[in-house]
């Protein structure tokens, strides 16, 4: 036990990616070092820029410590955008490897390749999908139900910082040490100490734990918000569909995330405390890990897909200028999917050896989920029928989703048949199937929602030109990247293969490579779109706040909304409340009287708890026990000390609220109402002309 060991635990020089590449300059190591350099360089540039712009104080007091659900939502999405860039680059590297490595070693070695698919999967699910959707729900849901904030703003901030902490761990694993090679599902016994003594599985365990703690608390927060913080008159069957899907998602998070946390903590107990939950010997049962993991994993895919279903419902209805067709059936379908999603987890391990009747039961249950999903697709189609459909970016993504998602659903039904699954499980066919669900089901939905609500959040519209380019890349790119994988999978190519041996596969891998590059171009288009839109924001401002002639409460205030959302809490008497207000001339009217509004003060406790726990878990990974102890003490201490603080709210006086509201109403009175076919022109100031 040297002093270094006490101070730095398992950290040594050769833990650093740069040192590894220096000592052993193979292409694989150099690629690893380059990735580490991008991570470090990115951080340095960011810090430098913030310092140069003297933006630290602003960032800290306006954003990082904010408890405003709108800002927290935006921070979630920015964070997820960064992680998406990394995971998508990794996907391109994976595809490049498989395009080159036919009967040769390609560009990355086996270990490195395994790290790549493990980080890609882990990041896409936990640090892209979940934060994107949680961000969107955070921003939109309270506005839709007529609330000033979520139920627990401080908890919301803790969730954010735990999630970001997990992302920081993922980034750190690029630079110091190596990530797990056990895939995003981290099955033992492979990830047990006996076979994997390094820090890789520990990185996976602790970053996933951070994310799952954050998600669990978010689930509780949102569910309570929707239960308790609805505006008067907002009864269950008047909730906008996005709120319905948010509610079902939150409930899924509450029930589905604990099995994951438990499974990873039990694996940690095996690795750190010498337990035998999942080991080969001494009574361990690794099949129970698989069981627990998918008890979480299947509901998780619905956590990722239900909120986009809500987005599509809103988008299709708004851009078809029609009431949502079959509202009740959509609500029932959402609930049915949420419950059924707890009855199918075994389809992820049909081949693990349980008896045939059990497989048959879960196969049938799986196919049943197709029914409510089909209902939804028809409802969206009927919503468009005879509507004034405007084919802008969001609608293109929605229609692209409907077409593509149905194909993925069909391959899902194929996989749900156990005997067929015995043939194609663990092949690229499965990879093609779930990307066929998740890319249209999750990414397209987020992009559509981003386009639709962006003007509300920032007060100006996104560039339509770049939006269409994004759509082209994401739509065509998806088909090119994943249709070949169906073919290769049916041909028997195993997933997670670092090297292929059949030269006839080459054409398919090359097409898939082009597709992956196109998808990457699509992401670039999103960033360019943002840049271009900020540049030309003076022509696209929509301060009055209703640029799409939409129907929900979230469109009934200025864009961007005041921090208290509603000058007075609205009274709801029908579904699509804002639509009816516009119809009966009740919109853009001053309130009878304004009241003082209480809002939570900013607090740095969220950041302290989140970063404290991150430091603690980082200490666990490297066996730096003092750091683990210190981090835990900071997190726990902050939580305790904060609980004594009674002075957590501040008051915005009624006069200020009234003045702000009046200014907005004057703006609305001065604006020219715009018919829908002109909504993409500079004339659109966010006031829609009434057209029925």
């Amino acid at each position, binding site marked *: 036990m040297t002093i270094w060991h006490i101070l730095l635990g398992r950290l040594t020089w050769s833990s650093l990616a740069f040192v590894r590449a220096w000592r052993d300059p193979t292409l694989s190591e150099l690629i690893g070092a380059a990735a580490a350099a991008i991570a470090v360089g990115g951080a340095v540039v960011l810090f430098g820029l913030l310092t140069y712009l003297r933006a630290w104080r602003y960032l800290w007091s306006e954003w990082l410590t904010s408890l405003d659900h709108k800002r927290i939502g935006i921070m979630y999405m920015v964070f997820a955008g960064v992680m998406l860039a990394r995971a998508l680059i990794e996907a391109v590297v994976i595809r490049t490897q498989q395009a080159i490595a036919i009967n040769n070693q390609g560009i990355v070695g086996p270990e490195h390749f395994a790290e790549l698919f493990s980080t890609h999967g882990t990041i896409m699910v936990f640090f892209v999908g979940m934060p994107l959707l949680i961000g969107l729900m955070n921003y939109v849901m309270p506005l839709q139900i007529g609330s000033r904030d979520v139920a627990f703003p401080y908890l919301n901030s803790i969730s954010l910082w735990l999630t970001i902490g997990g992302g920081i761990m993922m980034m750190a694993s690029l630079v110091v040490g190596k990530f797990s090679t056990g895939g995003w599902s981290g099955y033992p016994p492979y990830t047990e100490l006996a076979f994997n003594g390094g820090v890789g599985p520990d990185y996976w365990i602790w970053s996933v734990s951070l994310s799952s703690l954050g998600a669990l608390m978010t689930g509780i927060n949102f569910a309570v918000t929707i239960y308790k913080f609805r505006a008067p008159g907002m009864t269950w069957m008047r909730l906008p569909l996005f709120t319905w899907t948010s509610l079902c998602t939150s409930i899924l998070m509450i*029930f589905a995330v604990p099995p994951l946390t438990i499974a990873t903590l039990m694996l940690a107990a095996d690795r750190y405390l010498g337990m035998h939950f999942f080991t080969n010997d001494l009574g361990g*049962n690794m*099949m129970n890990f698989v069981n627990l993991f998918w008890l979480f994993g299947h509901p998780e895919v619905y956590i990722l897909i239900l909120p986009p279903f809500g987005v599509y419902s809103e988008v299709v209805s708004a851009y078809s200028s029609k009431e949502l067709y079959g509202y009740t059936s959509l609500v029932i379908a959402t609930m049915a999917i949420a419950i059924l999603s707890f009855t199918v987890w075994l389809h992820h391990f049909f081949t693990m*050896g349980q008896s045939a009747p059990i497989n048959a039961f879960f196969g049938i249950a799986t196919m049943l989920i197709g029914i409510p999903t089909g209902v939804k697709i028809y409802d969206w189609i009927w919503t468009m029928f005879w509507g004034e459909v405007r084919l802008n970016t969001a609608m293109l993504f929605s229609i692209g989703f409907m077409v593509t998602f149905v194909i993925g659903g069909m391959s899902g039904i194929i996989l749900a048949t156990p005997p067929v699954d015995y043939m194609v499980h663990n092949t690229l066919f499965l990879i093609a199937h779930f990307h066929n669900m998740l890319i249209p089901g999750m990414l397209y939905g987020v992009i559509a929602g981003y386009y639709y609500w962006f003007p509300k959040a920032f007060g100006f519209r996104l560039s339509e030109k770049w939006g269409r380019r994004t759509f082209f890349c994401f739509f065509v790119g998806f088909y090119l990247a994943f249709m070949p994988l169906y073919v290769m999978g049916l041909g028997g190519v195993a997933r997670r293969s670092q090297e292929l041996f059949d030269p006839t596969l080459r054409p398919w891998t090359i097409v898939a490579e082009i597709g992956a590059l196109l998808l990457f171009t699509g992401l670039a288009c999103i960033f360019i779109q943002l840049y271009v839109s900020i540049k030309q924001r003076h022509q696209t401002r929509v301060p009055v706040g209703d640029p799409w002639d939409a129907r929900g409460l979230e469109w009934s205030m200025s864009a961007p909304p005041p921090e208290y959302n509603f000058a007075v809490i609205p009274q709801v008497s029908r579904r699509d409340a804002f639509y009816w207000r516009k119809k009966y001339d009740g919109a853009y009217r001053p309130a009878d009287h304004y009241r003082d509004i209480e809002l939570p003060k900013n607090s740095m406790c969220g950041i302290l708890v989140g970063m404290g726990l991150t430091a603690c878990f980082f200490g666990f990974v490297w066996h730096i026990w003092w750091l683990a102890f210190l981090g835990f003490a900071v997190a726990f201490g902050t939580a305790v000390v904060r609980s004594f603080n009674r002075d957590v709210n501040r008051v915005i006086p009624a006069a200020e609220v009234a003045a702000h509201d009046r200014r907005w109403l004057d703006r609305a009175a001065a604006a020219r109402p715009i018919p829908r076919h002109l909504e993409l022109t500079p004339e659109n100031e966010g006031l829609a002309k009434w057209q029925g």
Partner: protein
Amino acid sequence: MNISPSLRRDFLTYALGYGLAIVLTGISFAFVFYRLLVPQAVFGVVLFLAVIQIVVHMRCFLHISLKQSARSDLQLILFSTLIIILMVGGTLIVVLDQNARMM
């Protein structure tokens, strides 16, 4: 500081719940650690204590009582029960079915 009776009652329920939870957990641990009974019996005891623990949590921490339970409380309890039956029951069926493979 003046403490209202309802605050006082709340505090007492939480304290009682906390105490009971610790005692129940402690007994379970003692049975396992000191091997007070044969394993199967210990399993039974721990299971029994766990069920009591659930009731304690519901009563003292979540304030769910049979009498004045609101409709949404009831819905939530029923839903939780359903999901837990699905998850725990399903796990038992699956793991026991595969058990032969671990021999």
